[in-house]
């Protein structure tokens, strides 16, 4: 039972907060504000997650729910993303009128999404996969529309419609897969797909064609990314942060299940598709980000381009591949969260979302400007920050497969990405602020989250044992599974 503990703790905290809200207990002065409960809930679930570390992979619900070392790392990443998102919340929800802007409900929805994502990581058959995927995505539609701004509804609706289209493609694809074995578990499908005899070959083709868009939607790959900019812009900044980190990691989890656990024998033939998709995503993400004015929309395209880099990790069926993806996703979460912390404070306190409004931030609040600069440099992949180390390992996977041209394109793309990151740094450091701009003030919790994220951005890449542990975990997984 213990390996279900992380998910269970989250749901328990969610209900606990609901009950407190029921009795309207938050308004009284004595009680702690809701995010403390959420933070402690997530904290406990992280601790329980890593307590599972030593035990051999444990299976529940007849093989539908399995916790392997690799899943522990994926779940860890999701929980960390959730943790940071919660630290951002006090910055935007002014605690006086909790009831009016439904702060406790926001946290509850968030916790439900998180638990859905954790279930997804351990699912081993199509039903659990689909259910937990929807459990992870549906609350997000609600969270995107939380703000009372003019366009929040529009963004949420677009997100929902495309989400529905994506999941319908997914279901159709799963249907075709079901035709092969009659059972829904990944393992049996994978084995069945190992030697598809001639006439079912085009069926496999159709299945793949239907499933990739579903994955593409979740991972914001090129043709399926169109929802992301609008959804990121419409939602409140912490949710944008959550979308760009946690939902990105969920996409990676989905990719691990689909590409490595189901289509592992088709991976060789899928390489050209994946290469085209990743190059297209990178290039689109980087080149469009150059022309963006709005900060949130800009971060959307930046995260789309990161998805392009992450896809490179799936080009190979080797432990290094999944290890570098995981390593980079941890780095990406810490970096993005550091960046979003400053952006949330800025947008919240100046009510302006235009990049130009960042003018002279280094003079008004030097500390936050330095943090944002470090985060952006890490996103651009500049050593000695950890973004570079992560990207280097990812590109090395593509180079290992001999795709040197792809590595070249990716390298050029990261130079282009440096251009638009430097544009922001120019605003902050070179241009001078208008006279009266006040310096940014941050609630204690957000400041703590910010410091933690910055420490992660700088040090994760330098600490070798962290990567070695991830690599060991993926080797265990491959050893256990490729036999």
């Amino acid at each position, binding site marked *: 039972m213990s390996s279900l503990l992380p998910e269970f703790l989250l749901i328990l905290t969610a209900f606990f907060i609901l009950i407190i809200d029921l009795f309207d207990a938050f308004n009284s002065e004595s009680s702690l504000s809701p995010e403390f409960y959420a933070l402690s809930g997530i904290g406990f679930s992280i601790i329980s997650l890593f307590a599972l570390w030593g035990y051999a992979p444990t299976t529940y619900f007849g093989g539908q729910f399995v916790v392997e070392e690799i899943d522990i790392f994926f779940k860890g990443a999701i929980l960390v993303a959730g943790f940071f998102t919660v630290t951002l919340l006090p910055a935007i929800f002014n605690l006086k009128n909790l009831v009016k802007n439904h702060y406790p409900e926001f946290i509850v929805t968030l916790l439900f999404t998180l638990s859905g994502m954790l279930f997804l990581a351990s699912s081993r058959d199509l039903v659990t996969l689909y259910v937990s995927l929807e459990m992870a995505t549906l609350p997000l539609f609600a969270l995107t529309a939380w703000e009372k701004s003019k366009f929040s509804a529009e963004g949420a*609706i677009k997100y929902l419609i495309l989400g529905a289209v994506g999941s319908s493609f997914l279901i159709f694809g799963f249907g*075709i897969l*079901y035709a092969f074995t*009659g059972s829904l578990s990944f393992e049996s499908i994978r084995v069945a797909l190992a030697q598809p005899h001639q006439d079912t070959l085009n069926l496999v083709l159709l299945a793949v064609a239907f499933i990739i868009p579903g994955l593409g939607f979740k991972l914001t790959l090129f043709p399926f990314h169109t929802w992301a900019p609008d959804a990121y812009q419409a939602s409140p900044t912490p949710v944008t942060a959550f979308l760009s980190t946690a939902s990105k990691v969920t996409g990676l989890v989905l990719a691990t299940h689909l590409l490595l656990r189901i289509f592992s024998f088709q991976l060789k033939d899928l390489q050209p598709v994946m290469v085209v998709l990743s190059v297209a995503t990178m290039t689109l993400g980087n080149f469009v980000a150059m022309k963006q004015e709005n900060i949130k929309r800009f971060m959307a395209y930046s995260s789309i381009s990161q998805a392009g880099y992450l896809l490179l990790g799936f080009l190979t069926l080797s432990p290094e591949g999944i290890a570098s993806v995981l390593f980079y996703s941890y780095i990406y979460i810490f970096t993005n969260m550091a960046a979003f912390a400053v952006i949330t404070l800025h947008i919240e306190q100046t009510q302006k979302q235009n990049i130009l409004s960042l003018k002279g931030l280094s003079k008004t609040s030097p500390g936050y400007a330095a943090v944002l600069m470090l985060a952006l440099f890490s996103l651009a992949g500049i050593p000695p920050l950890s973004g570079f180390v992560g990207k280097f390992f990812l590109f090395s996977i593509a180079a290992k497969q001999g795709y040197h041209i792809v590595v070249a394109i990716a390298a050029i793309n990261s130079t282009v990405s440096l251009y638009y990151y430097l544009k922001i740094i120019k605003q902050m450091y070179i241009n001078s602020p208008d006279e009266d701009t006040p310096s940014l003030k941050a609630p204690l919790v957000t400041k703590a989250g910010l410091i933690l994220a910055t420490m992660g951005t700088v040090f994760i890449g330098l600490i070798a044992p962290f990567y070695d542990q991830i690599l060991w975990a993926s080797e265990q997984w491959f050893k256990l599974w490729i036999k």
Partner: protein
Amino acid sequence: MNSHLLEWLIMSLFIFCVGIYGLLTRKSGVGLLISLELMINAGALNFISIHRFLYPAQVDAQVFVLFVIAIAAAEVLLALALFMLLIKKQQPVDITQLNHLKH
């Protein structure tokens, strides 16, 4: 792969395409939801027809379809809630008008 199953698969593919066509042409929000439902149900139909012809014994497909239906319902619910938001802000529930967030 007997012929009957093929007919059903083609039928579900056809419904799927109708759904897509509906999505692309409908202006009103509700029309959109209907075509979304069509697409999701086409997927479910797919499952049922395979279950009926190939693996009548296993019950997995039915479990899957039940979940699909439930989740589709949840999505529709959410969509309607969002439309309510639109209406509260005096914006018409017309998808083609919703183009303020662009480029």
